[in-house]
């Protein structure tokens, strides 16, 4: 449970578990009867999630330990599959393929040779987009938190990029970055945006930042609005400069909301698929892990399953690091309705 030893519980008046003295027999009985009702209400959802998430994940792990059916390059005969042990994982991580001469590094250009480059691309895109979105989103949130005429119009406008389907966003920016497109016309450049690595990645990053910064800004704005005005007024009276007020008050108080926003966005960016798949089809150094998995599905289920399991593990580890070491406690902030400390 998430009971926090805080002297100032805003909802302490009801006394449901506000302190140890309440944890008596009555509390226990209440928990027991409510527990049964809660189980009845929650179990259906858990079963559904079990079917749509847990079962496929377990299935993927089982599949990943099987050989893909196909021609054995060493003997040239058809192999039906069978138990493969960790072969599929080794295939991806060491980029080793079956060749007529036995195990060797996968030839360049095959999917098997792309695991580490895809991982690198995924992390590069994630770090750059999330960093840009955090900084720009913070700035947008600060502007939106001020009182001025037209503020609600602004808040509505930032929802527009968020609401547009990513597939449409991808096509829109693909058009903007076309060779004869508006981006080249506007900046008097003649760049083949999707034709080489740096421009292609930049185009994807810009499209992603455009699409998701509003979401980030709204999450940070929600955090900003939790800070009482009096704190700022008191700091002003004490003579704190605008910069001091930002670093000493805004940043520390908005940090929990900010960390959760960054966590959400990071995990979302790590599974990025739509934008690169549509804008560049993974060409020119834009193959992310998700794209690699999808490309593999039609070649061999089982090694695709191994790769998707690896992807899942990578994302899981990143989430763990965030929650454990960077203090992004999404569950806590979800359980704790009043985030104001």
């Amino acid at each position, binding site marked *: 449970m998430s009971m926090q030893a805080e002297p100032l519980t805003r909802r302490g008046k009801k006394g449901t*578990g506000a302190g140890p003295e309440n944890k008596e027999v009555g509390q226990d009985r*209440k*928990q027991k009867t*409510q527990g049964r009702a809660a189980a009845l*209400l*929650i179990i259906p*959802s*858990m079963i*559904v*999630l079990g079917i*749509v*998430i847990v079962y*496929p994940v377990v299935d*993927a792990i089982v*599949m990943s330990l099987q050989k893909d059916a196909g021609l054995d390059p060493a003997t040239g005969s058809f192999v039906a599959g069978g138990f493969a042990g960790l072969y599929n994982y080794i295939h991806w991580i060491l980029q080793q393929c079956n060749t007529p001469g036995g195990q060797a590094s996968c030839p360049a250009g095959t999917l098997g040779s792309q695991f580490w480059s895809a991982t690198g691309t995924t992390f590069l895109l994630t770090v750059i987009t999330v960093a840009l979105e955090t900084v720009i989103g913070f*700035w947008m949130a600060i*502007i939106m938190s001020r009182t001025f005429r037209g503020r*609600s119009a*602004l*808040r*509505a406008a*930032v*929802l*527009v990029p*968020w*609401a547009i*389907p*990513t597939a449409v966003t*991808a*096509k*829109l920016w693909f*058009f903007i970055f*076309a060779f004869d497109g*508006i981006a080249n016309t506007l900046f008097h450049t003649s760049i083949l945006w999707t034709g080489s690595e740096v421009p292609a990645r930049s185009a994807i990053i810009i499209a992603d930042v*455009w699409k998701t910064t509003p979401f980030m800004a*709204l999450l940070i704005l*929600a955090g900003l*609005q939790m800070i009482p005005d009096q704190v700022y007024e008191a700091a002003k009276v004490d*003579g704190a400069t605008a910069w001091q007020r930002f670093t000493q008050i805004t940043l520390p108080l908005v940090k929990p*909301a900010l960390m959760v926003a960054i966590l*959400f966005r990071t995990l979302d960016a790590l*599974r990025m*698929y739509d934008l690169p*798949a549509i804008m560049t089809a993974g060409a020119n150094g834009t193959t992310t892990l*998700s794209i690699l*998995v*999808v490309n593999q*599905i039609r070649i061999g*289920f089982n090694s695709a399953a191994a790769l*998707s*399991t690896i*992807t*899942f593990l990578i994302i899981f580890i990143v989430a763990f690091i965030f929650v454990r070491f960077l203090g992004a406690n*999404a*569950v806590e*902030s*979800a*359980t704790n*309705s009043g*985030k104001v400390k």
Partner: protein
Amino acid sequence: MSVSTLDPRAAKAVARRRERWASSRTYISAAIILIWCLLPFYWMIVTAFRDVGYTFDPTPWFTHVTWDNFTTVFSESLGNHFARNLLNSLIVASATTAVALLFGVFAAYALARLEFRFKFLVLGFVLGASMFPGVAIVTPLFQLFTNIGWFGTYQALIIPNISFVLPLTVYTLTSFFREMPWELEEAARIDGCTQGEAFRKVIMPLAAPAVFTTAILAFIGAWNEFLIASQLSSEATKTVTVAIAYFAGSQPHQEPYTAVMAAGTVVTIPLVILVLVFQRKIVAGLTAGAVK
């Protein structure tokens, strides 16, 4: 600060000037944000209404206006079935939303209202599930659906969509429910209602806006889904996002930009209207739990 050393009138003038400067800076920043967010969207609409021959015309306002692109979008002569794709998206997104709400409302009520063990664990699981990478379930489901003959059916799209829409629903609703005036429920029970009656007569009307907002978020999430639909749909069940991504033009190696922008406009305008009308609610839903 040196305010106290100045005479009060001068100090007031300085403060007023500073305030005016600050407010004009706010307006400039707001204008930049507005332009950045809306300009690409505006460009899509301008292009959607532009004659194909002027696809790359950089004129920033509506010129060579035509409905032709919309006719192209809905014409079947090039092998596109856009009306069908729209219907498919509507079916998949509505069904996903309905199922997610049906299960999510009860789970969220329990998470927000009842005391029980493992609550933290359940919430953690729900949150973890909402951040789950779609590719991790696409591979096994691709094989499973192929084996049982579900490939290219509606359920083959709805079931994986539930994997991310249901957690989102539970999470958002839980935050909403926690902010509701539950004292009213207690009052109703004191007046003689059972817990079920109190829920139906007092809480349901109060919860309706929260459920409605969550439904919008769930619907938008399912409507915008691309990865699962691109892998598990057939020609007959293809959704609009997939259709737009692989829209066929008249020339094999020429992207039909204006038609694609028209298709994008058709798909986006209803969402944008929805978002503008329910702006306040949607912002509350997106950031649920953080805003009081």
